[in-house]
């Protein structure tokens, strides 16, 4: 056993680093994910990677994956985090894509996978409903079969970035008489269909990134159903396990630790010396780094299992819980580090650039802290993840 990269892996790292350096759009450099990004900003890197054939490294090669080893994929994520790229959004590449190539018909694969890989089509998720959050299987959105169409009625919520979506993947109830999990189907819906409307939800950090989606007599061709009717829960569970695996965000957290350190070097602590030399702050920073090492090593073990042909299982819940806890801890320490300048709310404030208020790194500290409380709620709340581990891993 060892943790060293081989000579080939080091060469691969140099190759991807040089590719990112040469190809990442200049105007997006240093523009973090927390800025108010346009649709074009979100898709720019995805489209470049699509042309290169690198937009979906985790997919099987036959569907457009890169064929990289788990180690190479790890290096790829590390290098992207290092360069602070705006990565392809998960909804297409990490969520619906794997469902389509695993459960879809040859025609469906041919129709939908290319747009996901190229970044031409923006996907959104239609899972949660106002009454179906943690208890997702209680969803009520109804799809009634009429000839070669379904007529869909209902409301979805928490649809991230749905305001930009071209297509959505939805869980709908096709058999109200069956047991909760057994009457659900997985539908792909064109967001421009008549009857689809999207309403943004304002979050407590002042931003708009999630939406309600209303479906009012939306006509959906039956050939846009993935897998069998009433078997959608199989797709849903498969997708959630995939979503959790990527949710740990180790590479990004490592990068954010470095950013926090650089903030702590600029900030003056309570005794007049740099904050990074403050004993209490240093201790917290060290503890966070150690927790992150534990998560990273655990994720590597999961990746190695995957490489050996075992897909993500219930242990991906561990990565979700620990990964989001660490992300949230990072936002707490950043908030603490910036001191008084956590308070100004500068979004939309005119003249922000001409007359800066406080250091640049401080302005997003509080909004990110508040916004990131979502991480222990989305993708199956951390309470639900613990239930999954208790039941599926520990057999309790």
């Amino acid at each position: 056993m060892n943790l060293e990269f081989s000579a080939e892996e080091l060469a691969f790292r140099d190759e991807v680093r040089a590719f990112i350096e040469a190809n990442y759009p200049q105007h997006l450099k240093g523009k973090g994910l927390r800025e108010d990004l346009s649709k074009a900003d979100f898709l720019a890197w995805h489209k470049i990677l699509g042309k290169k054939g690198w937009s979906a490294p985790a997919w099987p090669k036959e569907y457009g994956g890169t064929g990289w080893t788990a180690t190479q994929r790890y290096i790829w994520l590390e290098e992207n985090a290092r360069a602070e790229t705006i990565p392809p959004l998960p909804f297409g590449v990490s969520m619906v894509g794997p469902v389509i190539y695993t459960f879809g018909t040859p025609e469906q694969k041919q129709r939908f996978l290319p747009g996901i890989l190229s970044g031409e089509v923006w996907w959104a998720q239609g899972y949660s409903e106002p009454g179906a959050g943690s208890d997702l299987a209680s969803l009520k959105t109804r799809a009634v079969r009429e000839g070669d169409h379904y007529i869909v009625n209902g409301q979805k919520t928490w649809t991230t970035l749905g305001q930009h979506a071209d297509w959505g993947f939805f869980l709908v109830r096709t058999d109200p008489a069956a047991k909760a999990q057994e009457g659900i189907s997985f539908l792909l819906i064109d967001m421009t269909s008549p009857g689809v409307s999207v309403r943004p939800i304002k979050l407590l950090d002042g931003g708009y990134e999630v939406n309600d989606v209303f479906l009012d007599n939306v006509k959906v061709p039956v050939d846009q159903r993935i897998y069998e009717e009433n078997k959608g829960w199989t797709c849903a569970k498969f997708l959630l396990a995939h979503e959790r695996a990527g949710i740990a965000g180790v590479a990004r957290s490592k990068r954010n630790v470095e950013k926090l350190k650089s903030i702590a070097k600029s900030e003056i602590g309570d005794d007049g010396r740099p904050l990074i030399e403050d004993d209490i702050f240093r201790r917290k920073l060290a503890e966070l780094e150690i927790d992150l090492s534990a998560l990273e090593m655990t994720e590597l073990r999961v990746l190695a299992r995957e490489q050996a042909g075992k897909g993500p299982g219930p242990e991906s819940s561990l990565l979700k819980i620990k990964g989001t806890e660490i992300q949230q801890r990072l936002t707490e320490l950043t908030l603490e580090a910036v001191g008084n300048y956590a308070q100004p709310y500068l979004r939309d404030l005119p003249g922000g650039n001409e007359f800066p208020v406080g250091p640049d790194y401080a302005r997003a500290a509080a909004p990110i802290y508040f916004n990131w409380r979502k991480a222990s709620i989305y993708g199956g709340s951390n309470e639900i993840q613990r239930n999954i581990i208790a039941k599926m891993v520990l057999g309790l």
Partner: protein
Amino acid sequence: MNFDYTDEQNMLRDSIAKWAAGQYDFDKRRAALASEDGWKANWATFAELGLLAAPLPEAYGGLGGGAIDVSVVAEEFGKALVVEPYVPTVVIAAGALAHAGNEAQRQEHLNAIAAGERVVAFAQAEPKSRWSLNDVSTSARKDGAGYVLNGQKAVALGAPQADHLLVTARTAGGQRDAKGVSLFLVPKAAKGVSTRDYPTMDGSRGAEIYLESVSVGAEHLIGAVDNALPLIERLVDEAKAAYCHEAVGAMRMMCSLTQEYAKTRKQFGRAIAEFQVLQHRMVDMFMAAEESYSMALRATIKLGESDAERAKAVSAAKVSIGKAARFVGQAAVQTHGGMGVTDEMRVGHYFKRVTMLDSTFGNVDFHLKRYMALSETKAA
């Protein structure tokens, strides 16, 4: 020992609760915060209800109350999410005048504060000072009988609404020296004062303040020249005690909102309040809020003791309440699920408020260190 409130204090509490229920509900508050002058009608009501006069001396238009009266107001303000600049004006500025102002200064300003005609912001923090009260770069140079002020002040809460600024400035010594700090009450309209106003994360307002050759007469100096730091420490401790009570009010609301939500929100065929993991979390929230009240009350009662005793009690309260408020806020949002992170639910606004209160006048770490410095921690 007696922890009972007087009849007058209970009436004060009831009058604020009644006003808030009618005039400061979620939508009215939001509308007031969104408009430039929305705070003015609320401020006039505070004057009518006697909230501004409550702790001020009777000789200057006050009601002669004290820190307990302030704590009652602050707790109710915490419950109602009131973000108008009460503490900077009534606790800090009026406190400075009552503790150290001369007769003419008290006559001029205290009556006006009690009547709601004067709003004062505390221009103390500087861009690099963090929370150290002794760290003052803004200078006040002696010029004839008066002074000339130069420097920048950071995140002065309430400054956009204020007509006067209570400014800490250095009249002698180096940037972090305890000696050489003085206190000035400066009209915001004075020549050379400019501000950059902004909203704050919790719906309040603040400003960066630029002082460029601002000339003030000697009558603007409050208290002893060069020796204002002990007074500033005391004023800021009094302000922190009030903010601690405000956090307690906010925490209690987060507890009850979360309990209500958990009792009505159904998942897996039953109210989520029936899940033991959530019950235990809500119990922990309740305990955190109760202990926070204990610590806030302890700090308020000890405000009149020696400087060291007062400082220790206030820092102890800031530490325990800072930790409790973070836990209660995060747990309240988590228990509300996705709804908890939306702007439309009240709970998130309390969470934002208590988070900003923690970073006002020193967070948990700052006060932990201050407490340790004030404690005997040497082996021999």
